Structure formats: structure tokens, C-alpha cells
């Protein structure tokens, strides 16, 4: 048993900042930022073994509740927990208000963009958005041309990834407008925080996130003109890495969790097979990608979807959320144009900044990036999950050369961004506090009553030292996020 207090330990092993990086809790001289003082006071009074106990408690909590995701290796599927760090990330209300407004602005503009791009295409005719980005975009669905979804809403659920640079400014890294995941970790992380900090949490008036499922339900129901529409959540199934989330959301919303094989089409209407017989489905919150949604319209080999469902959707017999084809607005190439999109449709300046982005098909950009590769990251425009990236500061010459060879073959598939020093937040590691890079994903739900942003979100942590990759599949973890 280590009975020394945590503050003793921090004196022996002072917090070592990453170079030229904004830390969420500590000033560069290791003073505690005002918003974190109450938390620090609490933690520093605990003994090291008590801190260890809190950590163990959280691990057991996730295991016993079965809050796991599946990882595939050698054809075997292993259930893992998403590592949780007990120190919450705190966002002050004044910062939150900016984030919230910024997200509402972005999502509003991107929805107008989607409606335009699938209908009149004014933005292309006005030469604000290049036609090539539509024509060559694998996420653009011709099947959606000329179709306006109910209430003109495309992106009912979005998760906007936000990071902070070394000055503490917020930047949008990515708009996830397809089927963003992680929201159940936001909910579960709060549940565990309540248990870890019973003495300090209630006093702090932390904004509540626990009604997310209710708001989601109401927003989804608002899309239909029916009084009590039948809503289902469509999951790829038990072996999907986000299955726990699908099942949790279905349980908390009180809706059926269905797989493609539970649904069947009759006369362009969607039904689910129940023990009573067939029951008509009105709204589908799908967590299946566009490609797998309908083997007739998209990927023919898909067994996850429902043949003919797109036709039912276009005949307005069922509502699908998010609408098919939203990927055209959130891929890495369209991202570059979001500031122009906001300006074009809303005539407003963007509230949240974009990271400077270079298109590698542009030869000037290409040369610039090649010259300054050590300070840049190159991403595939259709990549996600942190795969297929080149981090210029850590790759060796051969890797870089190979990567540029790939780019030259199809330069429009790649973009580059300066490597930002993501802000860090202290984590309990090796019985002490060490900085680790974090990002932040708040969730916005768009329904007939407008856009609601849940006051909180998922803070993901890159648990490997000096790593910037926060994805759960690649050594990431998460923290609770308190908006105070």
C-alpha cells in the first residue's frame, strides 16, 4: 500500500509538458488553471493507493457492465474495453457556448449544401464549389438526385471533431455526418464519474448529458407526421465494433434494435418480423453505412441491409436517418470548402475555424507540402479511423517516398494539413499524472425543432506517449467531459 498522497508524488515527479503544447489543466509553469482547481484539490489529497483504487473501480465497472467493443485479429474476435481515464476534461461554459453556436452554424450550412448539391446545384453554378469534387466523389449518390428528405434534413445525427492548437484555439478537424459513433461512451463515462466523484460532482452544476437518448427520440419522432411513429435502430449486428452502443441507445430510447434480416419489404413498405407478425416501420435510425444499406441500390454483396429499402425511402414510406449520401459533405476534400459553404448559404463568418488544408492535385500545394513534409500530415480523402495517414514528422525517408508515389497516381485522393500540436490533458499513468493528446467530439441532433447540441461530448485520448492518434482501434482511450 502506497500511503503517500498524490500531491507528494507530483512533487517528486512534476508534470512534464509536451513541447509547445496547450495543456487543459496546467499552465506552462505548472500552476493549475482556475477551472481545474477544485478537481486538483480533490485528487491531490488522495493517497496514491486511493487513486489506484479509483482506476481499478472504473476498469471493473466497464468490464462488469459489458461495455466493450470487438477487435478482430486472426479471424478471432476479442471483446475489449475502451480505456477510460479518471481525470475529466473540463470545458468552461463560455467556451462551450462558442462551440455550440459554431456547430449549429456548420450543420445548418452543410444541410443546405446537401440539399443544394442533390437538387439545383446553385453552389456549383456559382463556382463556389468545384464540380469535380462532386463528380469524382464516391460518397455522392446519384440515387439521391432530385429527392428532398422529410423536413429537408439530411444529417440528423452528427459528431463534429474539435481540437485545440498550441494557443488554445478551437479548430474543427472533421464533420462526421454519416454514422458518428462514441455517444454511448459519453453517457457511460458520466455514469462512472458520478461514482468516482460523489463528493465534488453534485456541487459543480455540470451540464447534464444523460437525456441525450430522449432528445434523440423526440428529434427522430418529429420527422414523421404520425403521432407515434415506429422507430427502429438498424445495426450491422453483434459483431460490429459499436454494437454495445447500438444496443444501449435502443434500450435507452425504448425502440427495437433490428438487423437487416429482421426487416422485410412489402409493396415498398418496410416491416419488421415480430412474434406477433409483421409490424410496419416508420423511421430507421441506421448505423449501417450507405454501401451496405440496400444491396439492390448499392453494394450487391451486402447481407447487412434490406433489399429495396432505398426505393421505399424515396416513395416516402419510411424515413432513413442519416439520409443516404451525406458523405459528400464530410469527406476530407469537401472539408476545405466549409468556410465558403457557410458564407455562401448563411452569409456569416465561420465561428469555428478550419485547419488549413492543402489539396495535392494543386501543383503549388503539392510542392509546398513536399518541401515541408516534416511539419505536415497527409490523409486520404476517403479514409477514416486514423488509417492510411502519413505523419511527416515521424515517417522515414523511404516511407515518405513510397507515399508520394501513391499520391502521384491519384493526387485528388489526398489532402495535407499542418501537424497541429493537439492540446494535452493529464492522465493517470504510472501512478502519476502525464500529459496525453486529446480531441473532442460533441454530438448534434437535427430534427423538426432545429439543431440541439448535447452539452458535453466524447473526449478521446491518445494514450501512447507523444502519439496524436486517438482512435479506439489504435490505442486511444477516453475521458468524461464536464461543461461547467
Amino acid at each position, binding site marked *: 500500500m502506497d500511503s503517500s498522497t498524490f500531491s507528494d508524488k507530483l512533487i517528486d515527479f512534476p508534470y512534464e509538458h509536451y513541447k509547445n503544447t496547450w495543456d487543459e489543466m496546467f499552465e506552462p509553469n505548472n500552476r493549475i488553471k482556475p477551472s481545474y482547481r477544485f478537481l486538483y484539490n480533490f485528487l491531490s489529497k488522495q493517497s496514491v493507493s486511493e487513486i489506484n483504487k479509483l482506476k481499478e473501480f472504473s476498469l471493473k465497472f466497464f468490464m462488469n457492465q459489458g461495455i466493450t467493443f470487438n477487435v478482430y485479429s486472426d479471424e478471432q474476435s476479442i471483446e475489449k474495453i475502451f480505456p477510460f481515464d479518471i481525470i475529466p476534461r473540463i470545458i468552461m461554459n463560455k467556451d462551450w457556448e462558442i462551440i455550440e453556436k459554431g456547430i449549429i452554424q456548420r450543420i445548418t450550412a452543410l444541410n443546405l449544401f446537401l440539399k443544394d448539391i442533390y437538387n439545383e446545384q446553385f453552389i456549383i453554378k456559382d463556382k463556389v464549389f468545384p464540380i469535380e469534387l462532386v463528380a469524382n466523389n464516391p460518397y455522392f449518390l446519384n440515387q439521391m438526385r432530385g429527392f428532398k428528405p422529410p423536413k429537408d434534413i439530411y444529417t440528423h445525427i452528427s459528431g463534429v471533431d474539435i481540437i485545440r492548437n498550441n494557443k488554445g484555439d478551437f479548430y474543427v478537424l472533421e464533420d462526421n455526418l454519416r454514422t458518428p459513433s462514441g455517444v454511448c461512451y459519453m453517457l457511460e463515462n458520466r455514469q462512472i464519474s458520478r461514482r468516482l466523484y460523489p463528493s465534488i460532482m453534485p456541487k459543480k452544476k455540470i451540464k447534464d448529458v444523460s437525456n441525450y437518448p430522449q432528445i434523440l427520440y423526440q428529434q427522430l419522432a418529429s420527422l414523421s407526421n404520425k403521432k407515434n411513429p415506429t422507430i427502429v435502430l438498424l445495426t450491422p449486428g*453483434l459483431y460490429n465494433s459499436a454494437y454495445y452502443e447500438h*444496443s444501449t441507445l435502443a434500450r435507452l430510447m425504448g425502440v427495437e434494435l433490428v438487423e437487416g434480416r429482421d426487416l*422485410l419489404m*412489402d409493396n415498398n413498405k418496410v416491416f419488421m418480423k415480430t*412474434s406477433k*407478425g409483421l409490424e410496419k416501420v416508420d423511421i430507421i435510425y441506421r448505423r449501417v453505412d450507405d454501401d451496405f444499406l440496400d444491396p439492390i441500390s448499392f453494394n450487391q454483396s451486402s447481407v447487412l441491409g434490406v433489399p429495396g429499402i432505398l426505393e421505399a425511402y424515396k416513395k416516402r414510406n419510411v424515413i432513413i436517418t442519416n439520409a443516404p449520401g451525406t458523405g459528400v459533405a464530410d469527406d476530407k476534400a469537401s472539408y476545405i470548402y466549409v468556410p465558403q459553404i457557410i458564407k455562401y448559404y448563411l452569409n456569416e463568418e465561420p465561428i469555428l475555424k478550419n485547419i488549413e488544408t492543402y489539396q495535392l492535385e494543386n501543383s503549388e500545394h503539392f510542392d509546398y507540402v513536399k518541401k515541408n513534409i516534416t511539419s505536415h500530415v497527409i490523409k486520404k480523402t476517403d479514409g477514416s479511423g486514423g488509417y492510411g495517414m502519413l505523419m511527416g514528422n515521424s515517417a522515414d525517408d523511404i516511407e515518405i517516398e513510397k507515399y508520394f508515389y501513391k499520391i502521384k497516381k491519384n493526387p485528388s485522393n489526398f489532402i495535407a494539413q499542418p501537424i497541429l500540436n493537439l492540446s494535452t490533458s493529464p492522465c493517470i499513468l504510472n501512478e502519476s499524472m502525464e500529459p496525453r493528446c486529446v480531441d473532442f467530439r460533441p454530438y448534434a441532433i437535427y430534427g423538426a425543432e432545429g439543431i440541439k447540441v448535447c452539452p458535453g461530448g466524447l473526449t478521446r485520448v491518445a494514450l501512447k506517449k507523444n502519439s496524436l492518434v486517438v482512435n479506439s482501434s489504435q490505442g486511444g482511450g477516453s475521458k468524461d467531459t464536464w461543461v461547467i
Partner: protein
Amino acid sequence: MLSRVANNLFWMDRYMERSYGLLNLIITNYNSTLDSGDYSSWNGILKTYMNIDSLEDLYEYDDAISIIDFMLFDELNPNTLINIIKKSRENARGVQEHISKEVWLSSNKFYLNISDRLIRKKFRRSDPIVFLEDLLNFNLMYYSNADLTQERGNAFGFMNLGKYYERTLQSVDFLSYRFNDLTKNDYALQESVFWKNLLLSIGGYQIYLKTYKSIFNVNNIVELISLNEFFPRSIKYSLRKLSVHVSLLNKYNNKIDNELLFHVKKLDNYVGYSSIESINEIELGTFLEKIKSDLNHIYSLITKTYFSQLY
């Protein structure tokens, strides 16, 4: 409720019930080998529960501890405890929105316990009976949680359908393979230990003593296990419960076509109006065979009615 979900709930409880039966059997058989030293008693269990024809197929398992270890932890045999619990829990994982949080947690905890890396080591170091009884507690926790927290309705109905279907089948199997012992081992008639263990392994020792006092004979045992309406593991009791839940499910799901209910009630009545004399007249083996074949038919009707209807 989705048909797929109903099917999962049915199997979730079938597997859970199977694990409960298996554990009880292992405990008492182990107990009895302590007295008799007769390892051949494992043969019947391995055959019925593990689909293994004889101990010789398991040459490396030559003592009770190794045999138990095999029945609990072998990953390759689909009928071992660990695999049954995995399947039960996998079914539970697929229907979390339909079972109470408590039921899910008790299933998950059972699974986590038995799939712990160190569990085999722990088994080798513990007294087997204490260890097995600890495992049995997970079953009891599961049942009490289901009883106390699960909403009465469709989900509860399908869980019970699985539970009582499996239990009926188990009691039939139990009598079938013990039937050989009962008739062959005449010498055992004198040995109260044999009877005691036999009854203990199906949880009927106390009720037997109350009903028949200390007079052990084959007829009384067959009567207790097949026809006693107060013994919760008897065929009669389990069938009655099965029929109650089929009626309820029919009601919940507005089923007008009552083919399933008809056949369950018919079997229920057949056993209900049987007596030990009528069983002896046609012989126990025939009696059990008839029940088993009716149960098979009932299972196909359950599937047809609830799990994979034709549209």
C-alpha cells in the same frame, strides 16, 4: 417483439438452465465418487451431456478432477460449462434492450468469472465442491434477478419457455440414462448412498424423504421425477409451467391459431393422467420416448409460431 429477439431469449434461458443442471450433476456425482470410488459413474454423464461415448475417448482424463476440469473448461467440446455460458451470454448480449439490467449483469458476471484466465488454476487449488457451489451461485443469482427484476411480458415468457422446455428435456434424459442404473444395479438398492446421490443430483432428496420416508425403490423415484406436481424439476411440473407460458405468449401476441398450445396441453394432460402403474404397463422407456418425441414436435411448433413465421 422481434422474432430473432424471441429466439435469443429462448436460448439464453435454455443454456442457463442446462448449465444449472450440469453443475448440479457434477457436484453430486463427484460427491458420490468420494464414497464409492466408482469412476464409471462419469460415463453416463459424459455420454448424455458431453456426447462422449466412453471415458476411453478421454484417456488423459483419468481422475475425477480432470474429468470435471474437462466438463467445465474444455473449449473444443460445445457442451462444456464454459461454452454453454458463453452461448447463453452471447444470446443475452443480443437482447440487452429486452432484459433487465440486472439479468444482463448476472449473465455477464457469470461469463467473466468462468472465462477468467486464472480460473482453471483456481479450480485445481480449491476444494471442488466449494468451487462448484460458487459457480452454482451465479445460476441462482441469475434466476433470482430474473424473478425479481424482469418485466412480466413477452420477454419473460420466452425466457421461461426456454427454461421449462430445457428442464423437461433434462428430467426426461436424467431418467432415461439413470434408468439403466436403476434396473441393472440391483445391489445398489441396498445402498442408501446411491439413492441419496441420485436424488440429490436432481435436487429431489428432501422432497423424496417427505413423500416416501426412507423407503427407496425404483417406482417411487420414477414417480417423483415424472409425476410429482410439487417437485419443481419433475416432468409434470415443468410441462405445466411450459403450458402456462405458452398460453400467456399466445395472449400477448394475439395468436389465434393454437396448434402449439394444443400440443403442449395434450402432452401436459398425458403426463397429468399418467400414474406409476400406467407407466409400468407400457414400460418407462416407452413412456419417456413418447414424451421426448412430443417435445421435439413442440419445439418445431414453437419455432414455426414465434421464431420463423412464413410471411
